[in-house]
């Protein structure tokens, strides 16, 4: 280090002034930033001060201010912004929604714009309210019907779907859909039930069955489940001639257990929880999944 006349520290090798900092003989050269850069840096600091004043910026120890922070002079926050943009969406939707509510299901199924509107609205309402049981793709699970297929307990027409959603199944609603299959345990012999189950399996799989099984079916089950086991949607009686089972395995013991002691599903009534427009949108969406009649 050679302090020169102006008492500056000049590095011998480069001839550049140093900052005077030294670590084990390594010196820090002072290669300064251009002035405009320094000014810009200062401007950003000043900008930040203004920003703190205008916008919510600093957390506070107490809960004072918005969720424990400074509010900022314009009292802007993300929650208000969200509310505003949601209101904007609602008002934009209002026109379509009014049109949708005036139109019958039949006309909606033939109107591309309203149909797309209903499917989109129903899809998001489904994810919010129905997916918990029926799955996000409406694929269902054991005890919760798959809404994509063409096997409907209470009917797959759009009006029937609408009524089911509105009033629920075995729900706390005066108009709810309800039916009860009797438990045959103690009424029928175990052996008879197995034979009935064999007959039922034969309907979907073509297995062999006994004449006794068929006769018992016709005596005990035909009234609700129909000839050839096609079911009855006005009673909520399942179609037993297909391989689709809601509560049990697709097997003889599975079917026997359902005859012995039937399980019944419950679906809440959505009337009162959702507005009518949403229920109608849901009906259109569920109908659109592919199994609608």
């Amino acid at each position: 280090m050679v302090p020169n006349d102006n008492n500056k520290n000049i590095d011998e090798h480069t001839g550049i002034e140093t900052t005077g900092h030294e670590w084990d003989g390594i010196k820090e050269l002072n290669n300064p930033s251009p002035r405009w850069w320094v000014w810009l840096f200062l401007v950003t600091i000043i900008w930040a001060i203004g920003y703190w004043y205008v916008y919510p910026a600093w957390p506070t120890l107490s809960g004072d201010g918005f969720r424990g922070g400074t509010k900022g002079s314009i009292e802007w926050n993300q929650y208000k912004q969200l509310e505003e943009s949601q209101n904007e969406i609602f008002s934009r939707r209002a026109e379509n929604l009014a049109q949708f509510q005036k139109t019958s299901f039949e006309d909606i199924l033939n109107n591309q714009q309203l149909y797309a509107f209903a499917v989109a609205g129903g899809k998001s309402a489904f994810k919010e309210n129905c997916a918990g049981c029926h799955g996000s793709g409406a694929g269902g699970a054991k005890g919760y019907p798959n809404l994509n297929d063409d096997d409907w307990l209470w009917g797959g027409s759009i009006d029937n779907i609408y009524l089911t959603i509105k009033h629920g199944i075995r729900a706390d609603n005066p108009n709810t859909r309800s039916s009860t299959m009797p438990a045959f345990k103690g009424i029928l012999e175990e052996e008879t039930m197995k034979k009935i189950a064999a007959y039922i399996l034969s309907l979907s799989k073509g297995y062999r069955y006994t004449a006794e099984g068929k006769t018992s079916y016709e005596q005990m089950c035909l009234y609700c489940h129909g000839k050839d086991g096609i079911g009855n949607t006005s009673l909520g009686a399942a179609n037993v001639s297909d391989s689709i089972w809601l509560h049990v395995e697709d097997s003889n013991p599975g079917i026997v257990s359902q005859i012995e002691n039937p399980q019944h599903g419950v679906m809440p009534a959505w009337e009162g929880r959702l507005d009518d427009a949403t229920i109608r949108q849901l009906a259109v969406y569920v109908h659109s999944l592919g199994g609608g009649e």
Partner: protein
Amino acid sequence: MHSDNKIKLFEKQQKIYPKRVWGKYRKIKWLIMFITLGIYYFAPWIRWDRGLNAPDQAILLDIPNSRGYFFFIEIWPQEVYYITGLLIIAAVGLFLVTSLFGRAWCGYICPQTVWTDLFVWVERIFQGDRQKRMQLDQSSFSFNKFWRKLATHLTWIFIGLITGGAWVFYYNDAPTLMSQILNFDVPWSVTGWIVALTGSTYLLAGFGREQVCNYMCPYARFQSAMFDEESLIICYDEFRGEPRSAYKKGASWEGRGHCVDCKICVHVCPAGIDIRNGLQMECIACGMCIDACNNVMDKLSLPHGLVRYDTELKHKLREKHIEESVHILRKRTTYYISILLIATTIMLYGLASRSPIELHVLHDRNPMFVQLTAHKIRNGYDIKILNKTHEDKSYTLSVSGLDKVEVRVAGAGIMRTDNLKVFADSVGHFRVFLTSYRQKKLRQNFTFYVEDVKTKIKKQKDSIFVSGTE
């Protein structure tokens, strides 16, 4: 170690006053400025007929409708790889030019150079040449100084305004926007861009100047990687020039160099350097010092080329009095040319084979398949047909590779698989259900086809039909 002395916190900009030059390279520079600014200002006004359903502006980046137009080329957002290709070609082309001609880009074509040059010209009109400008800056405040400075800055802002103004025409229909501007009825976004670009032009070309090249520009720094011994640089021939000294008319040239130390090469330099100190980072190779020096050599009846475009190799050999011509094809340039050819070929192939239809198929994941009554199985698909033409189209949808399959398009009204309508220049979105029996494989591969009903142009996409879980 402790010291009390003051340390500089910033480097003060040394204002540069480039002197006026005449000569070959100055002429080229004017010409290039004329051409590049001409392209920049007038290109958005070129019309190109694309029919009724598309804009008729030759070069247009339509952000709201997410389309890019360049004469006969139209790209959709997902085809941004064409822009990637263009950028690769531009970059490698720039590398090639740099390895051959040095910083030709910096010295002649770079917008920063062109606009700075324009601004210096404005400065000269109102404030005079180098000497006068320096005097004006040193003089105390007067009306003369005031109006000259004011006129300079107002002209700069005006140039900035038409620069920013021209930019927005690339993103909007130029005639429509022009009439909007004339009626002061411009969207705020457009105003914002004009103001921002006016500001950046004014600041960068008026004040930033060589500092942009020295401190901001990454290319200025990393282009040394593209240089080799045979790249053109500006070279002071010190074997001929040194020892330099002032020259009295009629004196002998014996025992001294041809450089008369007139410093004209320093005065004309827009980067404010002395080229006689050798190649420097700040040099943008604009050749103004060559013109200036050649004019002096003419007056002294000496040959041109004391300062000249030269290569390092030639310069070294000249010391040994060997004349060597420049090799255009050398390792580095061959690489760049090959990459350039490959990239261009791929791009041209891509453009030539661009189909007017695009088909996207998404097999449902939830549920993967649906078991129906009567042993049938249904799979759902989201199908998107992109109609890239400018007319409304009908398409036929078919599948091959599945046994006994029923194809159904879901939607409002009656949807027919042989008449899927997609509007001009848009995407048709269809829900498609395939119903069939259990296939040979649980995951059966098959193919969707769409065919333009009129032109019979086909597009296909493979997909799977899932019949069950393992």
